[in-house]
């Protein structure tokens, strides 16, 4: 196992890379992004979706103890809390870089447009983050009553925020592939999947170095593994029905989006990375609980985490690569989208920052104290 110091060094390098990417984007704008008029949303949006959904997923996992009182999850709840905060901040970072004129954001307050899903997304995530931080503060102050109240509020806000994220796509007029009422639920599934996988990975990474915090942690990995299995199955179910309905429903736009994934320009990324890493490998590793080992569960979680990132990317791009059919007629050439180095740098930097600050938090707050 790699030592904490090595991880810190690696994560620092990753953060430097991210900072370079951010600098390039701030300096050169769209020129260093893969986005075009045909594909206005690219990998930065996928990155944002990844972190924003992960945050709510982590919050939901934490709520298993704080709200629902399931003792088994107690050992990782604090970690889930700070990771939720870090993760949503990474998400805000990614979307902040994606925004062309972020300094105008104060108009969200002074000139709100209540019919805009992005306005609600911003508002709900801000409320969610606010209560999340408040919650952590109360835990720190050991104000148990308030912890419960704020935890409840945070869970509701988080669920609203992440489902609204689905709605940002679900109500996009021009993009049939994204449209529909299923999207909010899909985002909740993805959130849970991502949150669980992150907890598995961080547990494996951090727990060994701090036996003091372990508590009854021995029983946790199989439990998380089983949860992960359920979420992977739910994810696979959703994808299967969504895409098969899209293909056989033959609705304009929806059909093209599915075709782009199944046999079009994104097919490799879809079958190998999304289906392979998010569904097939975790299923293979987790299908039989009696065979669970910590290693198996860890690999399943890692695979699904990487896969989910590409699932977000596939989802964002598949809705846009087919040119809009404004005038009926023959299918035109697909739009091109290529994730540029600066965009990759943000992904790497975001993950690096997550690792670095996790280590910092664990070291600073958890090493000496006992479980709450």
């Amino acid at each position, binding site marked *: 196992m790699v030592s904490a110091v090595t991880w810190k060094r690696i994560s620092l390098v990753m953060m430097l890379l991210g900072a370079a990417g951010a600098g390039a984007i701030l300096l050169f*704008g*769209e*020129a260093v992004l893969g*986005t075009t*008029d*045909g594909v*206005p*949303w690219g990998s930065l949006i996928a990155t944002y979706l990844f972190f924003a959904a992960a945050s709510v997923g982590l919050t939901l996992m934490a709520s298993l103890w704080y709200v629902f009182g399931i003792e088994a999850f107690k050992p990782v709840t604090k970690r889930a809390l700070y990771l939720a905060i870090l993760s949503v901040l990474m998400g805000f970072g990614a979307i902040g870089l*994606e*925004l*062309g*004129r*972020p300094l*105008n*954001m104060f*108009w*969200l307050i002074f*000139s*709100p*447009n209540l*019919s*805009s*899903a*992005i*306005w609600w997304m*911003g508002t709900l995530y801000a409320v969610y983050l606010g209560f999340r931080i408040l919650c952590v503060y109360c835990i720190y102050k050991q104000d148990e009553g308030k912890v419960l109240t704020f935890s409840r509020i945070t869970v509701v806000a988080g669920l609203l925020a992440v489902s609204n994220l689905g709605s*940002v796509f679900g*109500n*996009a*007029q*021009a*993009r049939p592939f994204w449209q529909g009422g299923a999207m909010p639920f899909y985002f909740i599934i993805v959130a849970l999947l991502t949150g669980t996988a992150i907890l598995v990975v961080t547990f494996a990474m951090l727990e060994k170095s701090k036996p003091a915090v372990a508590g009854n942690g021995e029983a946790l990995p199989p439990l998380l593994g089983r949860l992960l299995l359920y979420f992977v199955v739910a994810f696979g179910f959703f994808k299967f029905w969504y895409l098969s309905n899209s293909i056989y429903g033959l609705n304009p736009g929806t059909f093209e989006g599915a075709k782009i994934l199944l046999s079009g320009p994104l097919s490799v990324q879809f079958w190998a990375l999304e289906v392979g890493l998010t569904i097939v490998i975790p299923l293979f590793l987790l299908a039989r609980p009696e065979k669970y080992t910590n290693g198996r569960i860890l690999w399943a979680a890692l695979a699904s985490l990487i896969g989910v990132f590409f699932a977000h990317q596939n989802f964002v791009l598949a809705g*846009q690569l087919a*040119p*809009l059919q*404004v*005038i*009926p*007629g*023959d299918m035109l050439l697909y739009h091109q989208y290529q994730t540029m180095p600066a965009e990759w740098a943000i992904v790497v930097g975001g993950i690096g920052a997550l690792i670095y600050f996790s280590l910092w938090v664990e070291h600073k707050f958890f090493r000496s104290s006992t479980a709450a």
Partner: protein
Amino acid sequence: MAKYAMLVDAGRCTGCGACRIACQMQWQLPPEIAYNRLEHREKGTYPKVKWETTPVQCQHCDNPPCLHVCPTGATYKRSDGIVLIDHKKCIGCKYCMVACPYGARTLDHEKMVPEKCRFCADYVVKGQQPPCVSTCMNEVRVFGDVEDPSSKISQLLAGESVYQLLPERGTQPRIYYVKR
């Protein structure tokens, strides 16, 4: 109160691109940013084939998706029907680009605002014609005030059988196309 609209006879268009560049000059846009475009289609097979070109630009919808999704109300609609963008409120989220079913938005890389056809708002109120209308040798576009029954567009709309682009989306565009 004037209500502006445009009538496009796509059947007259031969795809020369004058409308695009006349507009770029009018608004002093860089070469790669165009507020209007042509959609080319081949119908049929050789030698019985038709080549159709259709000019497309912001439709100045009465129910504009781009306006509904704009988080800060930077996109707004004037009482004369023209949909415009308030640059100082735009946060550059590009949701409007994603939401417009006509692909009418184009990102201005300098200002980072998703721009689009303005129906030459500053000029038409002074009685001028948008240059995409006036420069066209084939007189593809007619622009005017549909509240004024004596305007050319009112008279043509009364006589011609017209259609709109993607009416099923419920956007209620203010650009009409002549049916052929």
